[in-house]
């Protein structure tokens, strides 16, 4: 459990520097939520509202997680999900960055790529999942390819937008200091676009966790999505809720990680905080 607690701590700290009071408020909100949840599940039992296995209390869920954690089963699932998300998001983000930076800079590339993206983008990624399975099969590759596909859009669109939105006065200033083409891009366009690109990457990470679960419902023997689906088959509500909570924490930590890495580069946005 200490790992999950660490993640919470890290996530809370990672989001942005908080004052003691804000932190207390946030922890209080989490505790209040747990209390309400306990109350609700307790009432279900006391008043015999419905079969209590449908709404397991938080302690039951935490107990289940503890059990899965201690017997080692949980870590295999976490590792499987994290691995797929990490590889898929990284591939998708890198592809999107490369293509997005090119499209943002060069009008012909933009004219070539944007219409395709604009047509594919409104399709919910989940609608494409069966196609991926048909094309790539049910195994690991299709899951990763699917995450790659889903991550691509937010990162691509924000990157193109960020590059095109760079303040033209910054470009003029750099040009009259002698910067041209390659150097103009590296020293001005890239750093100026970075904040928005990072927002796109955070969206990509979130979407990665969003779609992995569903692709793990189908043809997976490991992963938190599998754990949820397995729980559904056998009415193991604590297992379903537990896996969902771990997913939430991982997504939170993923976001915090990107922000942590980003803060190194974006110190200039709020320099007084550093």
């Amino acid at each position, binding site marked *: 459990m200490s790992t999950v607690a660490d993640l919470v701590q890290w996530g809370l700290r990672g989001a942005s520097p908080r004052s003691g009071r804000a932190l207390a408020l946030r922890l209080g909100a989490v505790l209040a939520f747990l209390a309400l949840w306990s109350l609700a599940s307790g009432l279900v039992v006391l008043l015999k509202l419905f079969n209590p296995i449908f709404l397991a209390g938080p302690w039951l869920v935490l107990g289940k997680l503890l059990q899965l954690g201690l017997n080692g089963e949980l870590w295999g699932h976490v590792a499987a999900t994290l691995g797929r998300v990490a590889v898929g998001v990284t591939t998708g983000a890198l592809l999107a960055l490369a293509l997005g930076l090119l499209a943002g800079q060069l009008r012909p590339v933009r004219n070539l790529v944007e219409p395709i993206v604009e047509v594919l983008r409104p399709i919910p990624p989940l609608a494409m999942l069966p196609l991926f399975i048909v094309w790539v099969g049910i195994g690991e590759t299709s899951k990763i390819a699917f995450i790659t596909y889903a991550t691509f859009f937010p990162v691509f669109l924000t990157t193109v937008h960020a590059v095109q939105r760079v*303040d033209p*006065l*910054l470009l*003029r*200033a*750099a*040009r*009259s*200091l*002698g*910067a041209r083409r390659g*150097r103009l891009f590296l*020293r*001005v366009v890239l*750093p*100026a676009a*970075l904040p928005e690109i990072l927002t796109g990457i955070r969206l990509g990470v979130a979407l990665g966790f969003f779609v992995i679960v569903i692709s793990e419902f189908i043809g997976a023997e490991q992963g938190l999505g599998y754990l949820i689906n397995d729980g559904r088959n056998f009415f193991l509500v604590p297992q379903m809720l537990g896996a969902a909570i771990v997913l939430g924490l991982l997504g939170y930590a993923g976001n915090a990680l990107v922000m942590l890495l980003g803060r190194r*580069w*974006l*110190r*200039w*946005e*709020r*320099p*007084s905080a550093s």
Partner: protein
Amino acid sequence: MSRAGGSARVQVEGVHKSFDLDGRSTPALLDVSLEIHAGELLCLLGPSGCGKSTLLNIVAGFLPPTRGRVLVGGAPVTGPGPERGVVFQEYVLFPWLTVAQNVEFGPRLMGKPAAGCREITARYLEMVGLTAHASKFPAQLSGGMKQRVAIARALANDPAIVLMDEPFGALDAQTREVMQEELSRIQRVEHKTIVFVTHSIREAVYLADRVVVMTSAPGRIKEIFTIKLPEPRDRFAPEFTQYEREITRLVKEEVMKVHE
């Protein structure tokens, strides 16, 4: 183009500029010819919308003239370049770079060795009085400090010409006078060719070797004054006031035309 510091002559030859407004070509500059001597500080003065920024942007190479041409050190301008430094009205600094890194931007781009860059940066930060703020980011500076960084950045790149478009326009009156004194002091050391756009007649008389008064839109040159006052200038000297009065009368004529 002479790049090794110093200054260069700017020749504006028969420059016309029109903009397309709703499909109609609207003239902004009409046949402007002007020679700016090497090492001279020239102020451009004129009613709002008369084309001062347009002329400056053409010299900077940001805009092509519709007709005519601009020569810098004898070579025609085809685009922006490091021999023409620019200071914008809007305090354009690279927000992700510290004060020192902003000043160093040009020299580093030129591939100067690190030690040389540091020395240049230190010298120009000292010149604009910002040595103590070298490691701050632009977001931590006041408007006047930002503009001093922008001036230091332009000068550190050792341009032959510095183009300034209302650089002190957004500053309060006191800061503005301090900045004028600083620029005048720096110019006595650096002897750059400076084109300085302003709305303020006092500022022009305080800084300029010559003041070019432009007509209301479309802009032409109305008159050129040579300011023969000793430096540093005394804003309360009777001769200073005399120049102010004369130039004010001319500018007023043009401003009245706009309101007719």
